[in-house]
């Protein structure tokens, strides 16, 4: 384990960014934390977490995949992929680190999504333990430990210092290059105990996911409560776009006048055209679309991934839903521990 003082974090950032692009949460013009490319003068945010999840780094909202040139009856396929440079993301919370595992299970299974894989390979995740979780946090429901966030390197803030520990080979290499002072884990152990204590006090500490998981499809799918839960859903995409694990995308094309670019962009199961095709739409009303999102996170995903839930309890949808309808309300209503 290594440490540096909080005041010297900026010089550590400078060291990291000498070899790779570094992104840290920094406050934007509204005082909200967003991942920002580090440069001299960019200050680390004090907020608990970023408004948008770090999934952008590996699965950007819009991504050009290929281009076509169409001439008469002929089509030319142009490969526009660029080589990915190494980059480092600092300040990822435990929930969001777990979310990468959720995404990996989708994108890195055969056939591998090479766009995602390439970025994943070149990205180094430096996680930070949560000293001050919010009332909207419920990562512990899914067995995530906010005090041990994982990633390539874990950082704890305690008594004016940042403590660094590597978890992977990639992380170890980077950490070794930073030349930090080595230390014992006493301060971190105390911090971990403090976090464990605060986690117990959170309003959602008692939330359980026992009623959900693989094999519960038919039991939950036809529950009458879905109607009331989805009643005032606007069908906007806020929850899906701020979600660190939502991975649905659309493949679309843009005719630039000089050729066609095929790109993919995030899509939302909340949108009416998500499943609409020439022969009709299997999810005609918002009840079905709403149900799909939560069934996917709580039942379908665990069913296909050995019980791993598709929700990591980051609480973004709790904070951002325009009508304050969210996965916690769904779990409490259907899970019977309201």
């Amino acid at each position, binding site marked *: 384990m290594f440490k540096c003082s909080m005041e010297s974090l900026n010089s550590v950032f400078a060291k990291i960014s000498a070899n790779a692009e570094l992104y840290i949460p920094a406050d*934007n*013009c*509204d*005082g*909200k934390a*967003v991942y920002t490319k580090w440069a001299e003068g960019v200050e680390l945010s004090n907020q*608990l977490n970023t*408004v*948008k999840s770090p999934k952008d780094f590996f699965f950007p*909202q*819009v991504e050009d995949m290929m281009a076509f040139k169409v001439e008469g009856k002929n089509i030319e396929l142009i490969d526009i992929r660029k080589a990915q440079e190494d980059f480092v993301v600092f300040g990822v919370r435990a929930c969001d680190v777990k979310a990468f595992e959720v995404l990996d299970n989708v994108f890195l299974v055969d056939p591998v999504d090479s766009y995602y894989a390439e970025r994943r390979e070149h990205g180094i995740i430096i996680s930070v333990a949560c000293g*001050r*979780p*919010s*009332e*909207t946090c419920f990562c512990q429901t899914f067995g995530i430990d906010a005090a041990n966030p994982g990633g390539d390197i874990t950082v704890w803030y305690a008594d004016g210092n940042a403590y660094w520990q590597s978890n992977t080979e990639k992380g170890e290499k980077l950490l070794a290059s930073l030349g930090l002072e080595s230390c014992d884990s006493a301060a971190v152990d105390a911090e971990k105990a403090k976090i464990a204590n*605060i986690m117990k*006090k*959170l*309003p*959602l500490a008692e939330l359980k996911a026992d009623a959900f998981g693989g094999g519960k499809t038919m039991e939950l799918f036809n529950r009458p409560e879905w109607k*009331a839960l989805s*009643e*005032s859903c*606007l*069908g*906007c*995409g*806020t929850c*899906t*776009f*701020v979600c660190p694990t939502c991975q649905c995308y*659309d493949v*679309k094309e*843009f005719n630039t006048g000089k050729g066609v670019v095929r*790109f993919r*962009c*995030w*899509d*939302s199961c909340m*949108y*009416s*055209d998500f499943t609409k095709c020439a022969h009709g739409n299997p999810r005609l009303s918002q009840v079905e679309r709403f149900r799909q999102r939560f069934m996917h996170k709580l039942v379908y995903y665990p069913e296909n991934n050995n019980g791993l839930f598709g929700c990591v309890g980051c609480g973004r949808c*709790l904070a*951002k*839903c*325009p*009508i*304050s*309808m*969210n996965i*916690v*309300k769904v779990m*409490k209503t259907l899970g019977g521990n309201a």
Partner: protein
Amino acid sequence: MQKITRDVLVEKAVSLLENGTVANVLGWRKGEFDYDITPAVFTDKADIEANFVWNDFCGANFSKYLVQKTRKLEGKILVFLKPCDTYSFNQLLTEHRFDREKVYAVGVSCEGMVDIDKIKAIAGDGISKIVCGEMIEVSTVYSDEVIKIDAKDVLEGRCESCKSKKHVAYDELLGEEGDVIDSNRFDEVAKLEAMTPDERFAFWQEQLSKCIRCNACRDICPACTCENCVFNNPNSGVENKAAANSFEEKMFHIIRAFHVAGRCTDCGECSRVCPQNIPLHLLNRKFIKDMDSFYGEYQAGAEVGSRAPLVNYTTEDVEPCDVFEGGNE
């Protein structure tokens, strides 16, 4: 801080439900915390008594829900309307978007709603309890101390420049009727107009680049009630799920503002729900300010059946090329 209490609303809802005047109540449902309130349809007394909320976090405007709910629900619907909601209500009636006969509107006086983000900026994260009142009492898991915040200091942005405390539509009114207020709502627009074009460009570039195209602004907007939005129509050529670049961000917001120009009542829901805190109301207010100064004062929704400036003209109108920086030379 609300002068009218929850109990008055609950009593009203229950009595109208029980005497058969209405079959459904559109109201605010209690959330997980003290601030995350969800719009909901209540149909039974016990549910209302247990879960109906009226406090400083009841910002949601129900007018738009009436478009769908009047089609789907059996029987009359009781809707609670704050003064600003009544403008949206009237505007939707002007556009014949719902059947007035199916609605029983109860006006509720409003002292302004508060913004949880502003409270959190003062009290911090980890809120365990909020008690509303003149002084909002906030407890967090991090301290035993109760933090007291003056409700006036944490008003929602739109309530700080409230345009009217007067209900322009209702069947029945709870609380006192207020007046149209001489608000300062165009100050921010004027501030932007006073900037240089480069500064304005930089401002909007920064703001709009935050857009994630979640469509929450459109989907909450009581003026956006098209059955199929142009931005959802694959044949429109502009149907895009994500704003691929800064052009598309600008186009979406300019066109959306334009489509509601003259119909936007300035209810401020767009800015309230934006997950990225983009001040979208500044686009709508610019149009309102321009229309007021070019074509005479007009408040959408102030009366049913009024003709919006963009569907009207005079032969003496200002020429487009004489318009700049708000038309004030």
